[in-house]
């Protein structure tokens, strides 16, 4: 053993694996399934969470206050941007800015536009009050070249029009001055305009649009609230609901619960499949490893007789299992990533959740986790064959081994 020129451990592992292609393909498939399903579940949850974070960052608010009858509609505006129109029944929402703990409050109006054709499908128009707004004004600070003047609109990333061009809603022509970055939330399907321009559009709609738009003056659809530093958004939200009757509050935590509710069935199915495959795979893979070790008994015994230590043999069996686990996991994770990326639009619209591709770091962490689990399963499944083969004496194997 001391002078084996050209002997390489990896070559030995490779040759052993090449001798059993069909059995190895089945093992690789099992590992691909385990890693792929686990990774997909994590990918979906993290994609939804990061999308929601990006959406709330874009909004810049800690609390969204909506009329109590429109809690679900308010959530939908944020999550998927499904067009809707609603208003408070009176102007009592102004009290919100005077509630202790509220640092800033800004009203917004939500108007569902009309369906026109492919490129002017109904979208969510959000009218802001430039005096108090902190949603678009924060974006304008980051984009100093953009000014939001009369009939100017800023559009979400899913609205197809280039800055400098025009879009028509309710027969009124707006100029696109900017496009927001993708968040995966309803913000991507929204168009931001000013209160004054929305009133003008509604006023002209009777003559210019196929359907007249009625917007009650001095009414808002929602009020976005930023709480004072150090204050708990939950406590302020409770106070708002108590002091302003007829209102409901939406907080990021509540939205995340709603998203998790939507995702629960899918993630449960994926995680359940991964657990089921793992539970079935461990004894099966153990059995396959034991059969393989039995077939290799003669070879291993010869290696032992030539001076290979028990540690070397243990490492050889483990290396074969780990190699299959790593190859299978990489294939599973790769295919799962590809499918989740190409079906991103379908996932978003069918599950009605905000969703973006998670950051590279998150994908690496999710993939690494799934890979480690597969390697751990491979190690666990190899314990019994390793135990059996290292306990037998070399001459026994040479005498009885399969040739």
């Amino acid at each position: 053993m001391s002078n084996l020129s050209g002997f390489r451990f990896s070559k030995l592992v490779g040759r052993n694996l090449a001798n059993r292609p069909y059995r190895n393909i089945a093992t690789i498939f099992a590992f691909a399934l385990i890693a792929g399903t686990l990774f997909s579940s994590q990918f979906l949850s993290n994609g939804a969470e990061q999308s929601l974070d990006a959406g709330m960052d874009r909004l810049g608010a800690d609390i969204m206050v909506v009329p109590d009858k429109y809690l679900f509609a308010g959530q939908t505006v944020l999550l998927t941007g499904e067009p809707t129109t609603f208003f408070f029944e009176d102007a009592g929402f102004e009290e919100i800015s005077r509630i202790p703990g509220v640092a800033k409050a800004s009203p917004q109006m939500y108007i569902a536009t009309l369906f026109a054709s492919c490129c002017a499908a109904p979208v969510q128009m959000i009218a802001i009050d430039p005096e108090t707004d902190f949603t678009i004004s924060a974006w304008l600070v980051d984009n100093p070249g953009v000014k939001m003047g009369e009939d100017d609109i800023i559009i979400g990333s899913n609205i197809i029009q280039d800055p400098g061009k025009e879009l028509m809603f309710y027969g009124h022509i707006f100029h696109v001055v900017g496009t927001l970055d993708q968040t995966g939330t309803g913000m991507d399907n929204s168009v931001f305009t000013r209160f004054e321009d929305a009133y003008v559009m509604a006023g002209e709609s009777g003559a210019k649009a196929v359907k007249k738009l009625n917007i009650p003056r001095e009414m808002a659809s929602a009020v976005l609230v930023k709480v004072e530093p150090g204050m708990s958004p939950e406590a302020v939200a409770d106070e708002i609901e108590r002091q302003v009757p007829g209102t409901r509050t939406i907080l990021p935590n509540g939205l995340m619960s709603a998203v998790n509710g939507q995702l629960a069935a899918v993630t449960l199915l994926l995680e359940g499949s991964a657990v089921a495959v793992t539970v079935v795979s461990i004894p099966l893979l153990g059995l396959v490893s034991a059969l393989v070790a039995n077939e290799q008994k003669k070879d291993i015994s010869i290696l032992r007789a030539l001076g290979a230590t028990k540690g070397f043999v243990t490492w050889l069996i483990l290396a074969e299992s780990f190699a299959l686990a790593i190859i299978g996991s990489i294939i599973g994770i790769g295919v799962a990533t590809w499918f989740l990326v190409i079906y991103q639009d379908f996932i978003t619209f069918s599950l009605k959740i905000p969703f973006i591709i998670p950051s590279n770091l998150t994908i690496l962490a999710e993939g690494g986790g799934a890979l480690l689990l597969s390697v751990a399963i491979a190690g666990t499944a190899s314990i019994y064959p390793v135990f059996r083969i290292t306990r037998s004496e070399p001459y026994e194997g040479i005498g009885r081994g399969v040739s």
Partner: protein
Amino acid sequence: MATDKKISGIGALLIVLGLLVILTPWVLFPVCEVEGLYLKTAAGMQIPMKCGWTARAETGVGALIMVAGGLLVVRSTPETRQAVGVFSAAAGILVILFPTFLIGMCAVADHPCRQLTLPALEVLGVIVVLIGAYLIWKGGNE
């Protein structure tokens, strides 16, 4: 003999894949115009959207993939395998490029062509490319 049967099987698989490329945008996961969505010109005329033109191009490429598969079924010499392999790989790349770069799909993310037709064509394209690559490799090793 066994290899010839295997290659004929791959030819049959290519025929099925070519048929799927044809059926996907019209029947299986239809593009917007099949769902009644058209672009309207100022004169009120309805014309297909970008995805409609992609569907038409995919019909042509799908038919060519079927022809290549048929060729492999009737003649499976190493030269034919390599030629069909190169052709299939190129056709598979076109199946992917038509909806993504060369023509494209609708830009609006909630349109049916974006949600189902596009990913289905990408999956089919990748499978055709992989089969093409296998045939090139197989032809070169005989």
